[in-house]
């Protein structure tokens, strides 16, 4: 990749935000299970 269209920092930031969303959904549903189960 010689000429990125977006800066590596922005790419990393987007990826980290999405990963954080995935982790939050995972923990959120376990919390839901704990409350309702």
């Amino acid at each position, binding site marked *: 990749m010689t000429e990125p269209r977006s800066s590596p920092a*922005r790419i990393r930031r987007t990826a980290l935000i*999405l*990963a954080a969303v*995935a982790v939050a*959904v*995972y*923990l959120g549903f376990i919390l839901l299970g704990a409350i309702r*189960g």
Partner: protein
Amino acid sequence: MTTAVADGHAAHAGEHHGPQKGWRRWVFATNHKDIGTMYLVFSLTMFFVGGTLALLIRTELFQPGLQFVNPAFFNQLTTMHALIMIFGAVMPSMVGLANWMVPLQIGAPDMALPRMNNWSFWILPFAFTLLLSTFFMQGGAPAGGWTMYPPLTLQMGNSFPFLIFAIHLMGISSIMGAINIIVTILNLRAPDMSLLKMPMFVWSWLITAYLLLGVMPVLAGAVTMLLTDQFFGTSFFLAAGGGDPVLYQHIFWFFGHPEVYIMILPAFGIISEIIPTFARKPLFGHESMVYALSCIAFLSFVVWAHHMFTVGMPLTGQLFFMFATMLIAVPTGVKIFNWTATMWRGSMTFETPMLFAISFLFLFSIGGFSGLMLAIVPADIQYHDTYFVVAHFHYVLVPGSVFAVLGAAYYWLPKWTGTMYNETLGKLHFWLSTIFVNVLFFPMHFLGLAGMPRRIPDYSTQFADFNAIATIGAIGFGLSQLIFVYVVVQAVRGKGKRATAEVWDHPKGLEWTVPSPAPHHTFETPPRVSTEAAFT
């Protein structure tokens, strides 16, 4: 019309260094084309493994009575067939296509996170080795159904933790793949390619990736709770400890219904690429297709309980989930209308990819209509857990998702290999597949309406004739797929006419501006896309 212009340098760039030699090329792969190829080969392998299990199931069901397998093993076959086909065949095939085509279609040099891409793929063989190894354990493979409902699934033997670990691995792989696709599409598009100018396959994958990100962690959460219920003394779903088994079903189907769309939305994208090429017209209603896709994705989050009408729920709940489910027919109808309108007065030709696309329209619609029947609460109470449901989702997934993937493979194979596939064999493969898929699945509607339950190895003699017909269809369909393998192998070996860069008659899209086979590195310099709407 397309005015995407590949930079001459970009089209031939990347020749300065080729792929690594030998096994290192594949194990350490970071190139999106190599990883895409590995995904596709893996999914084809799993397609045959899952298909073999399906043939064992159908062989047992050829006649009433127990012939070949015992009931416990039969349950393992149905469970593993579903898990392998969903997570091992259909999903990786779509991810493989995304890996190959998304960077090429948006003019990106590679996926945004190539090393993570390598990891996403290489998790899968380990996950499926774990899962398949359970066949050789004491007690055998998982047998409680792919839905893993407690308390039944908690009564499994040693295979249970292996199943849970394998599901976690598949989930991690899918989530990383989804992150990679979203980041690539949002950050690495060619400079003039606005979101609405993106090809429909890219759009379908952007939406699918968001669905994956939203629901794969839900499945992971559900199976984590199963694991802790089994081994760590919790009672999320155990009624004896104050837990709620129905809660599991709600959580599972909150994942499970969007999962259906994860398997079909990329298929919609593929069909939206194939039909315009062979109708020689731009896609009708490009923007409305995007809105329809988004609408379907949104609705998929609010219809989960239609899988659970027989569990019992308040009338308002039944009405909500029934009407919300029926509402999905509206954006789906928009898509079918747009594809038909694209073909209307087009200068059509019927090469193999187009045949698969047209077959998709008819047969997927049958699956859609039977889905509408199942959405009706009082009818669903009759159809629930019968072969009607089996017929419904197989029509959606086989002549739906699988036919779209086969169409895509024929459509892009010349771009991947540089060789035209054998059109005669391709058409033979298409006709045999289309005939046998109907012989296989259509009788299941009648079986279900007559009351034959799912997941049973033996049945009343009144169901014998349709079961025998379905089994003949299964054998025919399975054998027909060997033609596909032969056609692909011949193309990979270069046995056939050389493909041009465009391959087809003036197809639209950036992927057709690079030579065939696509060089190892493409678009190192961003291509130019004219300001004129490229695909509308």
